[in-house]
């Protein structure tokens, strides 16, 4: 018995020493995601590991609940607080429910940022948006214009008339339209984010505007339906479908040529930037305050607005050159 206790004490001391040594050396950044086992977040974790490798003295703890619940994330965050990690970077399942727990984390000296899906202002020090409305609005028209050097007619297939995000993006797109001479927006239709209605609306567009050159669908449902409608109408090569979509759903359209390119955030860059920001804040190399800039390694600098949030970059463009790599990720 005595021997056993002795052995156990040694083991305990060894674990204790080991853990302490690791804690003293490494900046431990926890990347908390909505739920484990989602390709998008696995890719973000890959990006965070890339940042860790670049920084050297960083340990990434990639974690999250099994289901996308706020309660599950709180349990995870509580255990991270208990481990006294240096920083928590969270993509939140709930804007408000995480605030009390994250406040507790900040009180205990832990750096807290949110990324992708944000936390209310008093629950985090900074928030990283994958992109901004202005950048998205510009990108969707640029995608169409890039393949129309001589200009042409384009139409927009949106979600619903009341979809806040889509309406803002289309508004931003209209603002920058003068920068793309020759691009003529002939109309906007609404597929209500339903596959069948979007498909019919896309068919209608091609019938109403026989000279249509491109359909811009800033919705992941609409873009897939429009690509299908173009393929079924035998108009591949005449009408280019572009906008915002998911690589896994758009791989077929890229392959068939119905879509030459589309955009969405790049999860790898997002995880990389989140880790970089968390590191710089945790090591006091940057401070989170309105107007401040925080370096994000190869992704440049993040400039914080008055709500301490900032946009990472332009949406990332996916085409035949990289679709193979990303279609299995998300």
């Amino acid at each position: 018995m005595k021997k056993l206790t002795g052995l156990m004490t040694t083991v305990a001391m060894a674990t204790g020493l080991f853990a302490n040594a690791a804690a003293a050396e490494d900046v431990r950044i926890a990347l908390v995601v909505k739920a484990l086992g989602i390709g998008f977040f696995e890719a973000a974790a890959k990006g965070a590991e890339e940042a860790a490798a670049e920084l050297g003295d960083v340990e990434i703890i990639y974690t999250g609940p099994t289901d996308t619940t706020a309660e599950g994330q709180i349990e995870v965050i509580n255990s991270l607080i208990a481990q006294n990690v240096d920083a928590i970077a969270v993509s939140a399942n709930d804007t408000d429910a995480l605030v009390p727990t994250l406040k507790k984390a900040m009180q205990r000296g832990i750096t807290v940022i949110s990324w992708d899906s944000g936390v209310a202002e008093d629950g985090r020090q900074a928030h990283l948006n994958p992109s901004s409305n202005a950048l998205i609005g510009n990108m969707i028209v640029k995608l169409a214009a890039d393949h129309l050097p001589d200009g042409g007619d384009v139409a927009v297939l949106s979600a619903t008339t009341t979809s806040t995000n889509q309406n803002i993006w289309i508004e931003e797109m209209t603002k920058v339209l003068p920068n793309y001479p020759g691009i003529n927006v002939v109309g906007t239709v609404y597929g209500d984010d339903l596959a069948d209605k979007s498909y019919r609306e896309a068919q209608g567009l091609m019938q109403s505007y026989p000279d249509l050159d491109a359909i811009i669908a800033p919705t992941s449902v609409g873009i897939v339906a429009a690509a299908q409608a173009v393929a079924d109408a035998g108009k591949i090569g005449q009408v280019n479908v572009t906008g915002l979509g998911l690589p896994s759903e758009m791989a077929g359209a890229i392959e068939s040529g119905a879509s030459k390119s589309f955009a969405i955030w790049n999860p790898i860059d997002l995880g990389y930037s989140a880790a970089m920001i968390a590191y710089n804040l945790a090591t006091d190399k940057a401070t989170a305050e309105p107007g401040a800039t925080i370096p994000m390694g190869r992704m440049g600098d993040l400039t914080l607005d008055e709500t301490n949030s900032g946009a990472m970059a332009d949406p990332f463009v996916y085409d035949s050159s990289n679709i193979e790599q990303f279609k299995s990720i998300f």
Partner: protein
Amino acid sequence: MTMVDHIKTRVIPDRLTTPTERILKSWEALLLLVAVGIFILNSFASPYFLNAWNLSDATFNFTEKAMIAFAMALLIIAGEIDLSVASIIALASTVMGLVMQAGFGTPVIVLAGLVTGLLCGVFNGVLVTRFNLPSIVVTIGTMSLFRGISYIVLGDGAFRGYPSEFAWFGQGYAFWVISVEMVIFALLAVIYGVVLHKTNFGRAVYAVGNNATAAMFSGIRVGRVKLTLFMLTGLMSGLAAVCLTSRLGSTRPSIASGMELEVVTMVVLGGVNILGGSGTIPGVVIAAFVMGLVTFGLGLLNVPGIVMSIFIGALLIGVIALPRLFARLKGRK
């Protein structure tokens, strides 16, 4: 006291083991051993485990679920089940949000949560007892119904801005590291333990679960016992809704989703027979600690949640299967 002893010996005259022996061989002892084992393993596995504040944080993993588990234990012992508890939390929390938005203070908000829970319990109970419907079917129905109402009210929105005093229930501490929720948990454990093990009502619950027909012929109002238990389960879900809403500081219709299965797991792990008729409150208390310690301990080691679920599942099957296996091996000798 002599009266009680007298009855006991008359009911089971052929008892061969002494009371101490019985306790040592009981489910609760086995479970306690598991709990102590997990505690020791955890303290060796992570240097952060043995810290009063960390252990206090860990109790939030199970206190709300355990509040419901006590009432659920009685309900399952009586041969019924309520799968709508997590949805009752959602509905109660939504009503609390509406009351808060109407400008009422903390006492009214809390009362609204408790009353909503109670009414949901009455609804379940009346459907089961008056219309003689199987409780598993009724509560699968109300599981969708109650949460559905929350979704209609809130959509993808949320209620926020609860008064700061309201935070006391889910974020407050009674003294030192002992949270308010922990105190509620402990009080309820005592109350439910006394009710189940020391009162006529408690005996009636066992009688109903073992043989409802025989219980009825013995003069027990089976329907009334069951209705009371559904109301208690509803009330406890309302209480859990108060604590959880207070802890989260906001209400969303997805609140507490999936919690019903964790509550049932806790009850079954506590040694309550899922078919009814047997089980104890101390067993459920220890099971609550076992589940809390396992999830927190594995969390400290950053074990992914899915592995934790596998671990809890294995624990459940192991703790249930092993005693039966031993009993069978013993029988063969």
